[in-house]
């Protein structure tokens, strides 16, 4: 039997078994199971906005339920602004912010944060960089003072820069051993082509190329009050905090340098192809499907989110039930929508042992086609709606995750009202609408497929689907 023929058989069997399973898989609910109660509405936190005269936006989300306060300083301009030659300068900039100010050494900053019960962390995202600390409530004003000092008076000491740069290079070196990192990096590069969104993280070359002067000029360009947001969430007195921050932050002046420019809308590249990155010795294939998706704020986002939950966003969804619970091919298989400012990236990720790599791909293809061509059951839609609302309720349980949510909304030019709008829109989604939106987007030909693994073992298994294949270096 040739490989091709065998594969046809596999695909055929895959279709049949999955359809049979789908038909069998509507088990009766236990007769004694009590009914649901009435679901209480989940309200988004009340956020008050204040704008300082220099353009800095303050968002306050007070909540006295827990005696800590989260601060997040967000600036526009993330890794998309680095340029391929300096990919990673964002991470160096972020890592230098706590390394010394006109008033404090790096050690002093760390000690003051520790004393407040906090630590310093940053997150370099596609469209922005956020800096956060979570401190005990009685130390909130001190933490605000410290954060204001770091944002405005950072001195970028040379000796600390060497250490930060070395740490970043080592971190990237270490990351390259991880299959998930390799898959993600390759997928972004292939899907976004030359668009700045193709930069998935810093690179060793980009970090090596970045001098302290580069970091300083990025600081001047990106650290401007008119393109920054400061979020304060948790147990604090809004009035007192507002007057404290107004005093501390009003002297922050925007430079005359260019602000962050706008980027073109990304288009997808390399779709409908399978790329293999050889990782000798791998005992699993790390697979990522990626395509452009519908982003938050789009009128079709709710239907896309419901469709995603049904497809691969929840454990009772189709991918998990089929690939894991029926076939035992994977421990981890999920799909998700990651919204950025200019587009969303829709991904399916799975880790499967070498010998079932082709079989798992077959099931993923099958489920993609099923989403595109048939409407989900009303049962699936209701379940996805309630799951998504329950997940929102979970996100809003803690002030720090509220602050994270507000950070992503602001980077997409949205605000907290979006949370209530989305909850309402999720409940309005119909099975018909899910099919309509899936029909437009869920096609194998729309995806870039990357598999990182033992190429000599998985190549033949992946060659049978009629898609173009390339090996990556």
């Amino acid at each position, binding site marked *: 039997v040739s490989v091709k023929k065998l594969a046809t058989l596999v695909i055929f069997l895959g279709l049949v078994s999955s359809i049979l399973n789908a038909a069998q898989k509507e088990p009766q609910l*236990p007769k004694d199971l009590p009914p649901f109660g009435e679901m209480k509405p989940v309200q988004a936190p009340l956020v008050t906005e204040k704008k300082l005269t220099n353009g800095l936006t303050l968002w306050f989300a007070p909540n006295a339920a827990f005696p*800590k306060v989260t601060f997040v300083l967000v600036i526009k301009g993330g890794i998309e602004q680095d340029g391929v030659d300096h990919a990673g300068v964002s991470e160096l900039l972020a890592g230098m912010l706590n390394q010394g100010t006109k008033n404090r050494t790096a050690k002093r900053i760390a000690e003051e944060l520790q004393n407040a019960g906090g630590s310093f962390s940053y997150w370099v995202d596609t469209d922005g960089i956020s800096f956060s600390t979570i401190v005990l409530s009685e*130390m909130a004003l001190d933490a605000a003072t410290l954060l204001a000092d770091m944002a405005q008076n950072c001195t970028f000491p040379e000796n600390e820069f060497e*250490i930060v740069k070395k740490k970043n290079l080592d971190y990237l070196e270490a990351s*390259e051993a991880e299959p998930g990192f390799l898959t993600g990096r390759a997928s972004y590069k292939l899907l976004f082509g030359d668009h700045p969104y193709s930069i998935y993280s810093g690179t060793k070359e980009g970090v090596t190329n970045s001098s302290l002067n580069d970091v300083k000029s990025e600081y001047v360009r990106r650290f401007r009050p008119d393109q920054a947001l400061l979020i304060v969430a948790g147990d604090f007195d809004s009035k007192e905090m507002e007057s404290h921050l107004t005093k501390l932050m009003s002297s922050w002046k925007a430079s005359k340098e260019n602000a962050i420019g706008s980027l073109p809308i990304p288009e997808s590249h390399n779709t409908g192809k399978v790329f293999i990155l050889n990782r*000798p*010795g791998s005992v699993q294939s790390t697979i990522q499907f990626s395509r452009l998706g519908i982003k938050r704020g789009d009128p079709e986002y709710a239907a896309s989110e419901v469709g995603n939950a049904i497809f691969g966003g929840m454990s*009772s969804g189709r991918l998990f039930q089929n690939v894991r619970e029926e076939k035992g091919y994977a421990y981890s298989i999920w799909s998700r929508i990651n919204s950025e400012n200019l587009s969303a990236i829709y991904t399916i990720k799975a880790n499967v042992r070498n010998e079932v790599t082709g079989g798992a791909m077959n099931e993923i293809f099958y489920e993609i086609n099923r989403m595109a061509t048939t409407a989900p059951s009303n049962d699936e839609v209701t379940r996805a709606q309630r799951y998504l609302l*329950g997940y929102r309720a979970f996100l809003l349980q803690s002030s720090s995750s509220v602050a994270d949510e507000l950070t992503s909304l602001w980077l997409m030019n949205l605000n907290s009202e979006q949370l209530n709008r989305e909850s309402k829109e999720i409940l309005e989604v119909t099975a018909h609408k899910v099919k309509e939106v899936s029909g437009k987007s869920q096609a194998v030909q729309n995806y870039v497929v990357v598999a990182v693994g033992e190429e000599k073992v998985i190549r033949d298994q992946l060659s049978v689907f009629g898609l173009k294949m390339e090996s990556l270096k």
Partner: protein
Amino acid sequence: MKLFILTLLVLLVVQFSFAASSKDWKVPTEIKKLPNGLRVVFSEDHSSPTFAICITYGIGFRLEPEGRTGFAHLFEHMTFQGTPNTPKGVLDKVVQSGGGLHDGYTRSDFTNYFVNAPTSSFDQILWLEADIMKGLDFTDENLRNQKDVVEEEVRLNVLNQPYGGFYWIDLQRKAYDTFPNSHNWYGDFKDLEAATLDDVKKFFEQYYAPNNAVIAVAGDLSSEEVFSKVEKYFGSIPARKVPPLPNVSEPPQTGERRETQKDNFAKLPAIAIGYRMPSRTSRDSLVGALVSNLLHDGESSRLYLKLIKDAKVATDVSGGVNWPLGNAFDFNGPTLFTSLVFYADVTKAEELIQNYDSVISELAQNQVSAEELSRARNKFRSDWYAELERPISRASALATTTLFDGDPSRVNKIADEIKQITPQDIQSFVKRYLVQSNRTIINRIPDNKGEKQ
């Protein structure tokens, strides 16, 4: 109803205290024991229209039988595979239809099943979890399926990753001499494959009894509702005889243990150092937790300042007590005080260890300043509060403190206990436990063979 009134007479403790300063912050804790031995804990919190529940059983990896490494975790997977009343797949569907998130995890001395959901599904969740405690649907098909899934999990988290979890799996193998403490808790594939349906049944019968479990609930409910409904759904499950906890203590360590390993995937070397900790119930155990904070936590920590900023021999440092699979409170047997250090230059392993040792001997020779101690206490308290913020992590902390200390209100005492620790306590802990003869070191270095193939 008669049963219910009787059980109200059993232990009932209520604590309520909210105050403006975070220093006096406490969470409410109430506990009740049902006649079948099931301990029920509740923490009222109306800050979100949700609740979380942990059904926590007093069995973990440590006590899985010889020849069955990884079985406690495999068993955890089996509990999601349906019951005689609830076919496979129904649990996921019902929980998620109610807006719930659910999962389970296995640790050294307990297995925890949790759900976070809107309060509207409280009854359904209780019904489903009680149904599981009543009995599972054991089939060969489900066992085969979950062996495959667990083996994929081990590949994903261990076999296909750089470092392969050496800083817990291998470190405890090297540091301990007896099976319960030294075996691979994730499981050897040979042992996972050997597991039978009879093993599954036996494990369930032995350990998944109401008298070996704690149910902890936190969230937007009333204590009356929680206690009466848990009673309603779980009260009829009979108590069973649970095997007494065996002695899992180790023969004393007599000298430093060292090992060098090669890693197929890693590009940077790493060193793990594990010191045997004193008993969890000793006061020294808590001192160890604070010492770990002084050494590992943040950019003002001793190891960060020495290894990364001063000597520049390391790239990253982390660690803790009962780390990374737990904290200083949620275990019941031997555990390690672990440091994990990533570094760049394989030839500098000895230099790194010398620098590490100089940090330890500095702590042994000179007492920490009042300022440094105060900062570390604040950070410890702040981190501990974070464990109690979300209903799901609060319920988990309540369940494990009830399981191991018999007292959920311990969660409110930890900040005070930390406050009592003195510079002398820290110095004597370091002198007594952070010594060479009490430690194991594994140096894991990249093996580039893979690239040449």
